[in-house]
Each structure stands twice: as structure tokens, then as C-alpha cells.
């Protein structure tokens, strides 16, 4: 399963270090050694990853698993990495920030994996990236784009997706540019207290406030609420013409939409930071007739005009069934991680994590199913394109930027719920 030479080397180094400096230091050196070894051609390259296969993030975690496994199948079909087959070692963290750290510790120090892929969510990426940093591993991830991931001064973290603080900016600018007669007069900004959602709203609120859109509701709610109804009802009571919801999952968005429909409250525009991008899961939960006009910002969608993306979507449908609109954006984020790491391994000629980190910081532009990837000094993808998407007639379509030929006309004002 693991490279014989690398394991022996790792063990020798580990024993020596144990004698010299104690167990913890020994494990660290063993992990580093395992991560920087060149491989005999018959041995696979092992990649360790912790995913939320159960718990709060299980839907996203399992979508990520599909994305990683789809990439694994493709790369192995194409001859593997530098002639080695790729083997994923996936552990479940049950959506738990403590367990995710334990898992990566185990993958590094016990399993001696060659490379690491990131978990799902900012919440889990923060503790996981610290473990990877301690052992000198490059940590390429696709779902940890919040500022808190990059605030720890770690040089090994690279997010292939759109930085979250930029997510709503494009939409806010579009609203601000509307003629005053069409522009919403008021806006509500309810948000979950999640590191992924909270940083997204202030930049958009500033742009809209500058354009004269008055804030009538701006409150944070806990990630796990007993009852969303009073919060959604309070938003409805403000009669805000625009709602920007800081949500991380489908249940949150569904609860707000349901309460809005029950209160006969139809804002002109409704955009949520997460949930509507979950494809068929979102449609099934909220009901097709309630999806019309609902928007979400993101860096990718299944109809994205990119050859690699189209190929991946076709493969996904062939393997798992469904329609393009049903493909979760998590799949693309995970697949992109694999693509970026593969390009780094090929460019550096091995799995030396120090070289990979240096290479990814070199300013090189890489390609992924989400478009170009170029990391800035903190590891954010400065080349990521920002889009806004909308559900129209059961289809998930790109509406922003309007200059992109793939964008269709936005339905504004949004149709009433249930239409």
C-alpha cells in the first residue's frame, strides 16, 4: 500500500529521532520523510484526506469524496502521477474539528502518506492546516476560503477556489449599478456565525450602502438554531427588498424560503452564500417551484464553459447519474485540488512537499475545472473568477458577470415563491 523504501526510511528516521528527541519530534520527522520520498515505479503515491462523511457536513463531505475519487480515476486512467498509480486514503472526521486534526496526524505519522488533500469547510481546514504545517506538508484545499484560514501565517495552505470575501462583491456591484427606480431601497443581511459566511456580507453591504441601499436588518444567528422561523419572520417584517443570506447549507436556506413563503414575503432579490449551489439536493429540499430566482455566488457551475469542466461533468453523470444541474459545486472544488496537486507534482518531479510549496508560491498559473489558479503570497487563488448563479425554471444558470458570453439574463425582480 505504501512505498516500501519510504516506509523503511521513515521508520529508521523515526526511531533515531525517538531516541534523540522524543516521540513527538520523531513522528514529525518520520512524517516529513515520508512526504519527501521519491518512489519506485511500482509503488503508488498515497494521498491522505479527511472528509466529513457523517455529521453536519456529510452532504458536502460525500460530494467532495466523489470529486476526489473522480479525479483519482481520471489520473490513474491517464497513467498516474509520474508513472505511479494514485491511491487515496480517506478518513471520516464526522464534521468534527478535533477529529479532523487527529485524522491528519494519523495519516501523516502512521500512514506516512506522500501528499495531503484538504477537508470540507473553513471550520475544519483551520485545524487541519496547522497539523499539515507542523509536518511540512503542502495543504491544497478547495473549501477553506475564509480569511481565518489564511490568518495563521502558514505558508503551506493553498485554496484553489474563489476567496470567500469576494463572493458577493460582483452581485452587489450589479445591484448598485441598477437605475435608482429599479434598485432595491432596503436590504437585510442575516447570517450564520460561520467563518465561511460572515466575512462575505460586509464588503457587499458597504457597496450597497454607498449606492443608497438602506440596511434594515443585520444580525448573526448561531450555526445550529432550534427554530429559524422567528429570525426569518423578523426579516420578513422589515419588508426588505433585497435579502443576502449568509448560509452554509441547504437546511438554513430552506427554512428561510419556507418562512418567507408562509409570510407572503417576496423580496426583489434573494441571494444565499451557500445551499442553492447544492444542485439536486437543494431542489429536492426546497421544492422546484420555490427555486425560481434564487441566487448564489460561486466560482463554478455545471454549465461552466471550460473543456475540463465539461468532461468532468459528463463523467460524473455517467458514474452517478442525474443531470448537469444536479452536480454539486463541491465536486468541482475537490477535483480542482487534485488537478493542481498533479501539476505541482509533475513540475517538481516528485512528492517533495517543500518543493511543491515553493512551486505553488512561485506565481505560476495552473489550470483546473474551475478555471485558472494562481496563488498569492498567503495562498488564496488570485486568478479565480467570480460568478453569480440563479435558478431559472429548474435550471442552474450563470447570470453574472454580464460580460461573460455564458451568462444569461438575470430574473429580476425574482418571481414570487411557488411560481
Amino acid at each position, binding site marked *: 500500500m505504501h512505498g516500501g523504501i519510504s516506509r523503511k526510511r521513515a521508520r529508521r528516521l523515526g526511531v533515531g529521532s525517538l531516541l534523540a528527541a522524543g516521540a513527538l519530534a520523531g513522528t514529525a520527522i518520520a512524517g516529513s520523510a515520508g512526504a519527501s520520498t521519491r518512489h519506485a515505479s511500482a509503488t503508488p503515491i498515497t494521498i491522505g484526506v479527511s472528509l466529513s462523511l457523517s455529521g453536519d457536513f456529510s452532504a458536502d463531505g460525500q460530494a467532495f469524496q466523489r470529486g476526489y475519487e473522480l479525479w483519482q480515476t481520471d489520473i490513474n486512467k491517464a497513467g498516474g502521477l509520474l508513472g505511479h498509480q494514485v491511491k487515496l486514503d480517506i478518513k471520516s472526521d464526522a464534521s468534527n474539528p478535533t477529529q479532523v486534526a487527529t485524522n491528519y496526524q494519523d495519516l501523516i505519522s502512521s500512514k506516512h502518506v506522500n501528499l495531503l488533500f484538504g477537508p470540507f469547510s473553513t471550520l475544519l481546514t483551520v485545524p487541519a492546516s496547522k497539523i499539515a504545517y507542523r509536518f511540512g506538508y503542502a495543504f491544497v484545499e478547495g473549501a477553506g476560503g475564509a480569511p481565518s484560514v489564511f490568518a495563521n501565517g502558514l505558508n503551506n495552505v493553498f485554496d484553489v477556489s474563489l476567496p470567500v470575501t469576494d463572493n458577493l462583491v460582483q452581485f452587489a456591484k450589479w445591484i448598485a449599478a441598477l437605475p435608482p427606480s429599479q434598485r432595491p431601497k432596503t436590504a437585510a443581511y442575516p447570517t450564520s456565525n460561520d467563518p465561511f459566511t460572515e466575512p462575505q456580507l460586509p464588503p457587499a453591504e458597504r457597496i450597497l450602502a454607498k449606492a443608497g441601499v438602506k440596511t434594515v436588518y443585520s444580525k448573526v444567528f448561531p450555526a445550529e438554531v432550534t*427554530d429559524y422561523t*422567528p429570525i426569518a419572520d423578523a426579516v420578513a417584517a422589515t419588508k426588505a427588498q433585497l435579502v443576502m443570506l449568509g448560509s452554509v447549507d441547504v*437546511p438554513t436556506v430552506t427554512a428561510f424560503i419556507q418562512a418567507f413563503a*408562509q409570510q407572503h414575503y417576496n423580496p426583489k432579490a434573494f441571494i444565499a452564500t451557500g445551499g442553492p449551489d447544492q444542485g439536486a439536493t437543494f431542489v429536492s429540499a426546497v421544492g422546484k417551484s420555490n427555486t425560481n430566482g434564487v441566487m448564489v455566488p460561486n466560482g463554478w457551475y455545471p454549465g461552466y464553459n471550460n473543456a475540463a469542466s465539461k468532461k468532468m461533468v459528463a463523467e460524473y453523470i455517467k458514474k452517478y447519474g442525474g443531470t448537469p444541474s444536479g452536480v454539486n459545486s463541491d465536486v468541482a472544488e475537490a477535483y480542482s485540488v487534485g488537478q493542481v496537486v498533479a501539476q505541482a507534482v509533475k513540475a517538481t518531479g516528485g512528492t517533495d512537499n517543500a518543493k511543491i510549496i515553493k512551486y505553488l508560491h512561485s506565481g505560476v498559473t495552473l489550470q483546473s475545472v474551475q478555471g485558472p489558479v494562481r496563488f498569492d503570497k498567503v495562498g488564496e487563488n488570485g486568478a479565480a473568477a467570480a460568478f453569480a448563479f440563479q435558478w431559472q425554471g429548474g435550471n442552474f444558470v450563470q447570470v453574472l458577470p454580464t460580460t461573460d458570453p455564458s451568462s444569461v439574463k438575470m430574473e429580476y425582480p425574482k418571481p414570487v415563491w411557488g411560481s
Partner: protein
Amino acid sequence: MGSSIIQAVIDGVLTGGVYALMAAGLTLIFGVMDIINIAQGIFVILGAYLSYALSVHAGIDPFLGLFITIPALFLIGIGVEWGFIRRLKEGDRTAMSILVTYAVSIIIEGVLNVSFSVNYVQIHAWYVNRSVHLFGFYLPYIYLFGFAMAAVLLIAIYALLYRTRFGASVRASLQDRTAARLVGIDVRRVSTICFGLGVAVTAAGGMVFGATNAFNASTSYDLISRLLAIVILGGLGSMGGALGAAVFMLVLEDVVAVVWSPVWATAVFFAALVVVLSVRPAGLFGRQVARAQ
């Protein structure tokens, strides 16, 4: 602001009724059997999934589907009691029940994940997103229907416990299992039926929960912590306490969310819980003296 507070109180009362229904089974099981049923959350979700499956695959209205799901969960409850709970030794029954029912919960969660996947689903029916306009407020049909059903079922459970011979056996077992045995009550049989009933009522609570929330099997973890808080506040073993505590919890949280901040809603509830328990350690309606084993 005044109308928002009234709306929050209405929301809290209506939602509280549904939570009471989910918690009623938990408190009934503890009251009779000294079992802390950690699996109650997953039973709620199982009930939601059964209603969802009947609605999607057989076109059966979720409320009508309860005529199938309630008996189904009753049988599942009896099966779990027979297969796992009955085998616990009397002495360490309460502590071991936490581990055993947690294991049951994990097993059911796994089966649900395999059967339905981890993707979120929600129960749909014509009344789920609609509401009636009364006295200036929109009252969602699903909560009105759910509250009415909760009231009927809770009254039915109350009548069963206090107006029937079986209920007398249950209450005798609840007061003192050994004494109940001495007067000829088949405590084991009573316990089995009570466990079945406690699980069966979650079918109704689960259906309404599944119609008002998107859910998957993991949702049960959030639920069980809330249900435990409700039955502890209401008093373990007290049916009325479960109703009172559920309404109190939801109204308090909902009003705090509107008047102050949603972030503080849960904290204020738990602060209230601590205050109540410091004054009344057995909860609002709990018995002060622990039952003999």
C-alpha cells in the same frame, strides 16, 4: 416591534407543540424504564424519512401516512427494546442505556445513510408553505396542523396513562418497579409497550419536523440535545412537563432572537434552565424523590 414579538410568541408556541411531541416519548421511556434514550433523535428522523418515502413513492399525504408510520415505529421500538434494552442489567441500567441507545442510533443512522443517502430532503405537501391570515398574522398551516395533532396525541397519551388499566400499570411501574412486580404487574411487558409507544410518537413529531426542516440522518444529533434539554427542564418522566418546557424553550428563544439577538437565544434558554434546576432540581414538573429500582 410589538407585532414581531407577538409573531415570535406564536411561532414559539406552535413549534413548541411539535417539540413536545418529540420529547414526550423520551420522557415516557425514562419515566417507566429509567432509560435515557439517546436514539430518540434518530427515531424522529426515521419517522420523518418514513413519511417522506410514503409521500414521494406512494403519494400518501404525510398526515394520513401516520396511520402507517406510527404502527411501524411502534414495532421498531418493540424490536429495539427486545433486542437491546431488555438485556441490560437492572443495576446499571440507566448508565448502560446511554451507550446502548447511542449504538442503536449509530446503526439506524448508517442504515438511513445507505437507504436515502446523506443528501438533505424535506417533506412536501400543499399546506407546507401556505398560511392563514388571522388577526394580522400569518399562521402557517403546517404548524397549526402539527400543533393540533400534538395536542390530540398528548391528550391521548395522558388518557392512556390516567384513564386505563394499562395506564395504572405504567404509573405503578413508574413509581416503584419492585412494588409493581409484587402486586402482579408484568413490568417487563409494560416496559416493552412503553418503549414502543415512546418511539411511536416520534413518527408524528418526525413528520412535522421533516415538513418544516430539511433533514438527513445527521440532523438527529442536533435534535437529541434539544430534546434532552426539554425533558430535563420539564422533569424527567413528566408528560405535562415536556409540553410546558418545550413551549417555554421555543417561546423564550424566539422572543430573544427577535428582541435581542439570535446568537443569545440558545444561551438565554440554557441560563434559564440552570436557574430553574437550581431552584427545582427535578425540573418544572418532576418528582422530587427518585424512584426505587
